[in-house]
């Protein structure tokens, strides 16, 4: 297991997380599903190590990527999109020319269309979130945490990015913990879905071809999923 979360408890004024446990295999796409305010973001912060649980433990790899819901607050508006993508290498003190070259190479390798020389505020929401994602991918994380990354985007960008993430996860064999409160998103993307409120798990047994909203298999899976809510 690449990630093991054991009996996590966290409370602020009220209990937010109560005895949460799950584990993730290498290369698995796990979706954490729950309504707003059920502690999904808190759980990701605990996994990322930027917040301590009241009790319980987390065993996770050192190299973690984090994609946020609010891409505007996560990107640096004083850097171009290319410089934003290259930021993890800047922290590793890689010389500027080299890190920009590596960032460009990554974008070309993944054949994605990103306005690299624009600033984030000159780009669309979808492009900005794609830049956030590419920034995390550049450091080749062992575990990618995604906190409702598409919920602030309009429908078209959301659908495009959902497909992009699905493709990238397979192509790069990413291990992903993806937080959402959108059933369609959970069923389309996840290999397994953990329902945070009821602490149940649903295994998504859909082939890649079936992971389209209009397929019968998808609708059956969705109904099975809803039965657990």
């Amino acid at each position: 297991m690449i990630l093991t979360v054991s009996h996590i408890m966290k409370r602020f004024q009220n209990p937010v997380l109560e005895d949460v446990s799950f584990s993730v295999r290498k290369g698995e796409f796990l979706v954490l599903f729950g309504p707003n305010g059920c502690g999904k973001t808190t759980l990701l912060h605990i996994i990322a190590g930027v917040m301590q649980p009241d009790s319980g433990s987390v065993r996770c790899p050192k190299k973690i990527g984090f994609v946020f819901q609010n891409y505007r607050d996560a990107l640096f508006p004083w850097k171009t999109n290319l410089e934003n993508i290259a930021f993890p290498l800047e922290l590793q003190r890689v010389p500027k020319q080299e890190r920009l070259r590596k960032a460009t190479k990554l974008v070309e390798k993944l054949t994605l269309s990103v306005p690299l020389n624009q600033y984030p505020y000159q780009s669309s929401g979808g492009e900005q979130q794609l830049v956030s994602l590419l920034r995390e991918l550049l450091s080749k994380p062992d575990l990618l945490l995604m906190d409702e990354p598409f919920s602030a985007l309009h429908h078209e960008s959301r659908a495009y990015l959902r497909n992009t993430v699905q493709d990238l996860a397979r192509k790069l064999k990413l291990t992903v913990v993806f937080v959402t409160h959108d059933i369609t998103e959970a069923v389309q993307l996840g290999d397994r879905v953990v329902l945070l409120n009821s602490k149940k798990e649903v295994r998504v047994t859909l082939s890649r071809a079936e992971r389209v909203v209009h397929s019968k298999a998808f609708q059956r899976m969705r109904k099975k999923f809803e039965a657990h809510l």
Partner: protein
Amino acid sequence: MKKVLSLVLLLMFWIFLTWTNSVHPVFLPPMHSVLHALHDLLLSSGLDVMSTLGRTIAGFLLGVFIAVPLGVFLGVHRGLYNTVSWYIDFLRSVPVTAMFPLFLVFFGFGNTSKIAMSAWASGFILLVNTINGVRSTKLNRRVMAQVKHATRTQILTKITFPETLPFIFTGMKIGTSWSLIVVLVAEMFIGTTHGLGRRIYDASILFDTPMVLACIFIVGCVGLVTNYLLTLWEKSVVHWKV
């Protein structure tokens, strides 16, 4: 175009009032006498302009160099800020003019006291702006860097400081005005051999209104040019906010 037209109308109104003797020249002197005073001032009082400008810039820069690092430090160390915020709020509420005697005691009658007062005035504005800037930085950016094992210095220099820049620029724009105001008042009331404040004070004692207006015009130009240059700099550095 509208700006030029409004200026022309204003000047014509001025000429009309003085030409018809509607206003006593002590209150509103004829335009030609003000232009004459301005000519004299520019020819003979370059040292006055340079002295005032020099003190303003020195005081302002001193304020920047002290207040910005201190503001970043206090903004990052919230516990310490909560302890000392009361002192900051108290000291920034006291008009620097009320503290003239203390500055004179500590720094004497020379340039040092005027520069120190100017630094005090602009420094507190910059300090409060910088602290607010640091405190309003986005959590997500820091979390992202922490997850990538960034050092505290890296977070401070690569994230917190650039994110605070819009607040620092706002502080600098207000701070320069205050530096200039305090230097002028200090030149008037503490006294100096050269300086626009001293010129205004001397002219006002002699009821030399044309010279007073000429000095005010120069001071206004200094303020306007400073603000314009700072705005240009701000646009190039903080392009995402302007």
